């Protein structure tokens, strides 16, 4: 059992209404323009689909679909396995309309905390956000100071 875990959080403000951004994020023919080369996907919770990247690719499973604010899917799980927490990466899009603009946030996380008690998970989650950013900053500084080790 591993405790493999990571979390990436990014955000962007778009000069377009939330409904337009929603279509860009969720429609397969749009997804092929910003993510995978080949997308077979039904935007329904629980739907199994496929995303291809060049000659590679794999199954995806849609999790949350709440137009026009939330869309999430799991990918990168071992072929043949049912994707679930612990064996896949969860990509969560959150869209917030702000007047004529939309704030789009993406969180990609892979959690494998099977053996962790609930309280520990909570603490872990809380500490993670701040700690991770600080940690990365330090790593980046260190690498900048000591290029090539």
């Amino acid at each position, binding site marked *: 059992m591993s405790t493999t875990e990571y979390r990436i959080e990014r955000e*962007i403000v778009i000069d377009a209404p939330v409904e337009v951004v929603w279509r860009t994020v969720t429609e397969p023919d749009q997804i092929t323009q910003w993510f995978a080369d080949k997308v077979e996907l039904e935007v329904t919770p629980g739907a199994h689909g496929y995303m291809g990247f060049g000659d590679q690719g794999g199954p995806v499973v849609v999790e949350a679909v709440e137009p026009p604010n939330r869309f999430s899917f799991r990918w990168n799980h071992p072929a043949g396995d049912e994707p679930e927490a612990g064996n896949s990466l969860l990509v969560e899009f959150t869209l917030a309309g702000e007047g004529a603009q939309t704030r789009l946030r993406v969180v990609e996380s892979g959690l494998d905390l099977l053996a962790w008690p609930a309280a520990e998970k909570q603490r872990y989650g809380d500490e993670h956000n701040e700690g991770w950013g600080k940690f990365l900053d330090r790593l980046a500084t260190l690498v900048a100071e000591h290029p090539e080790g």
Partner: protein
Amino acid sequence: MTADPDDELWAAIADPSRRRVLDLLVQRGEASASTLAGQVPFSRQAVSKHLVVLQQAGLISRRKLGREVLYHVDGPRLDQATRALAGVAREWDQRLATIKRLAEAAHEQAKTATTEHGS
């Protein structure tokens, strides 16, 4: 199951306490287990265990100085970890930038179409 070397790396830095120890080593450059234990809210034994995992993941190395054992961060592996994480973050930045471009173009087009239609 095959052990991906990256799995070991992620596991080593996934634990907040362990990250704290690594953070301190990054700041100090080099320190003994006792010195580190003096700066964290957990026991010297816990610190020693974290140091073992970090060392196994290739993130830190140790050397003996007299009777003391000193730990220091291992540049190349940290470099690799940083690059891996920064790479993923950069990929998402690029994807978001593309989504922005697509959505704004679609919106512009819709506006123009409406204007032309209306005039």
